[in-house]
């Protein structure tokens, strides 16, 4: 019997190693796998490459990873925020490498990795600083930039419900990067509010089929803090 359920966040992230690349889902307060990130911080591994839309807010999650000096490089679209002081400090001190990617290219490159494409020509960023040094091409009278897939060793995502085969459904805008990161990582670890019996998720509404998910961890929803 195949059972992808893992008991506890610590066990779920126990093989994330120094130097690993780790995708982390979430956009703002929605879909951030906080407990998995906490467990990753507790592991004490470093030299990580983190792929996330932002570079951390306040004192928790990705911000705490950066504060603890665990992050070698971050790939994101929007690092600078009112409360991104840990990133800001690390960046100004030259302690963290930044690859800034337009949000839609970030999504497209992650999806390309999950789909096995070698590269994509995308119109976003053409003629800007973020395309400098990149191959460009005119196709049918429009200009495009060649962008490469972004894959990772691990993805940490937050879904709503999962089952023992790894099928997932999400909740509202907490879906965001979760489904595509699940496709683009070698090992995808999903925290869910509940693991339900097989078949309880309607086969028509599964958002992420279990083939893209290696581990599922049930974590009771916390009191959700008001956004900073």
């Amino acid at each position, binding site marked *: 019997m195949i059972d992808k359920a893992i008991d506890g966040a610590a066990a779920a992230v126990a093989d994330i190693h120094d130097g690993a690349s780790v995708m982390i889902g979430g*956009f*703002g*307060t*929605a*879909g951030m796998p906080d407990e998995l990130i906490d467990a990753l911080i507790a592991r004490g591994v470093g030299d990580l490459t983190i792929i996330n839309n932002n570079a951390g807010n306040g004192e928790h999650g990705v911000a705490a990873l950066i504060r603890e000096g665990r992050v070698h490089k971050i790939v994101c*679209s*929007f*690092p*600078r*925020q009112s409360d991104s002081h840990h*990133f*800001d400090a690390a*960046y*100004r001190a030259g302690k963290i490498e930044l690859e*800034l*990617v*337009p*949000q*839609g*290219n*970030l*999504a*497209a490159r*992650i*999806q390309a990795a999950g789909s096995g494409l070698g590269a994509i020509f*995308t*119109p*976003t*960023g*053409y*003629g*800007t*600083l*973020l395309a400098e040094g990149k191959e460009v091409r005119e196709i049918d009278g429009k*200009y495009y930039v060649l962008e490469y897939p972004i894959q990772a060793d691990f993805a940490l995502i937050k879904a709503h419900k999962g089952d023992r085969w790894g099928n997932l459904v*999400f*909740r*509202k*805008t*907490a*879906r*965001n*990067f*979760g*489904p*595509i990161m699940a496709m683009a990582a070698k090992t995808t670890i999903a925290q869910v509010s509940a693991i339900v019996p097989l078949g309880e998720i309607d086969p028509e509404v599964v*958002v992420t089929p279990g083939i893209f998910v290696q581990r599922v961890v049930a974590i009771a929803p916390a009191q*959700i*803090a*008001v*956004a900073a």
Partner: protein
Amino acid sequence: MNRLNRDQMAARVARDIPEGAYVNLGIGLPTKVANYLPAEREIFMQSENGLLGMGPAPAPGEEDWELINAGKQAVTLLTGGCFFHHADSFAMMRGGHLDICVLGAFQVSVHGDLANWHTGEPDAIPAVGGAMDLAIGAKQTFVMMELLTKQGESKLVENCTYPLTGLGCVSRVYTDLAVFDLGPSGARVVEMVEGLDIEELRRITGLDLAFTKAAEPV
């Protein structure tokens, strides 16, 4: 000269958004446009973090922090709205499915180049978010901004000096003093506020603006 305030600018943009349009309102000033769309006009608001059919802010205390917009504010979903993942969301933009996107700007060139993501200052930490995707994705990209900086310099320019967000992507600019259509042949004044004339507008912008005689007062 009846300079428009920010709410009046928002109301002016709202007039140009027809029923049935799929629209993304950028973070900041453009968000105000939603306040001026008449309730009886069905318009589909997209937010790039994965929702279509976005409704107004919830009542205080009713916030669901898993239902937010791209500005990370709590929102609601209209009946008939739906959720999707980030790749599908940006496919809506990049694939040309959105009709209108309204953005703020540091500068816009008369040929429609947009600069709105980076001041270019050497110590600034850059952050781009969805700006570049939005700028080039929608069928029409509108910019909404005050025409002049606090120092009195025109933000509508011959060539942008700030780092670009997108090339030739802005079709129309709404300002507190005038509305401009942009294109390969340059900027054309569509409307001006009462008390402003084309010579004065040319003077304060330093631009060789085309002008339709019929240009209406805003």
